[in-house]
């Protein structure tokens, strides 16, 4: 029961309070780039959720079972990025072979995910927060993906409506998107302090 409580608190905290996009500025590039249409945003979110769960778990295992016992922490970043690139490649091949229709809709986003800082960022944060429990690492990684999906879908919904608005010329494109993101962050600050 106690473990369940910790896991639930961790999940809610990473989705709402410590949302990677809105409070840690991770994954801003796809957040600004792919949030033009809501279906594409959702596809990107799903792909990121999948890869981040996989790589968060894998990097935790590698960190705790291989790097730490052997004192190889120096090579941590190189290992992490290799794992992420490998995971993305694996997911791409798997999806292409077994879910061709899904691959059609994911296709373009998958290679982009390797350089999505949300993924490497989450692996580093798990390491920084000193998570020493595999289950907690899995839940946090999954929550991070869900948080990313939520943020990017909200943004896409706003931007679809923003297309109809009369925006001053020099604010068109990226500037207005950034300002919208800022206001969205302000809204999410209301969740701060919900869980200690």
């Amino acid at each position, binding site marked *: 029961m106690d473990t369940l409580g910790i896991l639930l608190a961790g999940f809610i905290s990473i989705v709402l309070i410590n949302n990677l996009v*809105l*409070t*840690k*500025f*991770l*994954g*801003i*590039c796809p957040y*600004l780039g792919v949030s033009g249409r809501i279906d594409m945003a959702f596809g990107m979110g799903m792909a990121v959720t999948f890869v981040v769960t996989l790589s968060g778990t894998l990097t935790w295992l590698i960190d705790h079972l291989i790097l730490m016992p052997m004192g190889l922490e*120096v*090579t*941590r*970043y*190189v290992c992490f*990025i*290799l794992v992420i*690139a490998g995971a993305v490649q694996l997911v791409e091949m798997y999806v292409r072979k077994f879910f061709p229709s899904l691959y059609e809709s994911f296709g373009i986003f998958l290679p982009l995910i*390797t*350089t*999505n*800082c949300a*993924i*490497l*960022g989450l692996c*580093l*944060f798990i390491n*920084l927060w000193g998570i020493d429990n595999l289950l907690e690492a899995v839940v946090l990684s999954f929550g991070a993906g869900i948080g990313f999906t939520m943020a990017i879908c909200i943004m896409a919904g706003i931007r679809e409506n923003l297309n109809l608005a009369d925006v*001053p*010329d*020099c*604010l*068109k494109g*990226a*500037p*207005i*998107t*950034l*300002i919208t*993101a*800022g*206001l969205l*962050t*302000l809204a999410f*600050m209301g969740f701060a302090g919900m869980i200690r």
Partner: protein
Amino acid sequence: MSDKSAGTAKLYKETLIAGLWRENPVFRLLLGMCPTLAVTAAVKPAVTMGCCVIFVLLCSNIVVSLMRNLLKPHLRILMFTLTIATFVTIADLFLKAFVPGMSEALGPYVPLIIVNCIIICRAEACASKNTLGISIIDALGMGAGFTLTLCVLAGVREILSTGAVWEVAILPAGFVPWAAMRMPVGAFITLGLLLALVNALTKKKT
């Protein structure tokens, strides 16, 4: 011969200036947004971050440019990433050893330089196609442009959130700090307005 060297010098100069304004990585190409937003609450961490990026960009451009003829197309991105990760590790360990306070403040954003799109983009677009000289100049120009942008953004935010620049107070004591500028909101909105300003300036010129 002198004609050719004059041409090369001109090319070098143009590459250097392109990174500063015409192809400024943050304002014009919208690359590397994550560190731009995350480390610009004050000028000091912004400058540190800029120096780290210049170092990594310079080293990775040199290495990529030297091995550009050996690269296989399908392994290219992987080689770039590994090269960058190695230099980022060096920069991170250096910061931890010599400026531990700053390393603490920047936290995971130093290792996140690995996935900073500016560096991969320059490796792909410039260093893997050009000679060593051009690659070095390009790295310096792009790095300087990035650092300058960070400083401008951090300067605005630090003045408004604490009334100081580089931790030296410059506004009168009666100034009420805008706490929001230190938070994520301040980062997004300041960058949005700065981009709008740059857009407006460039529109007028053309």
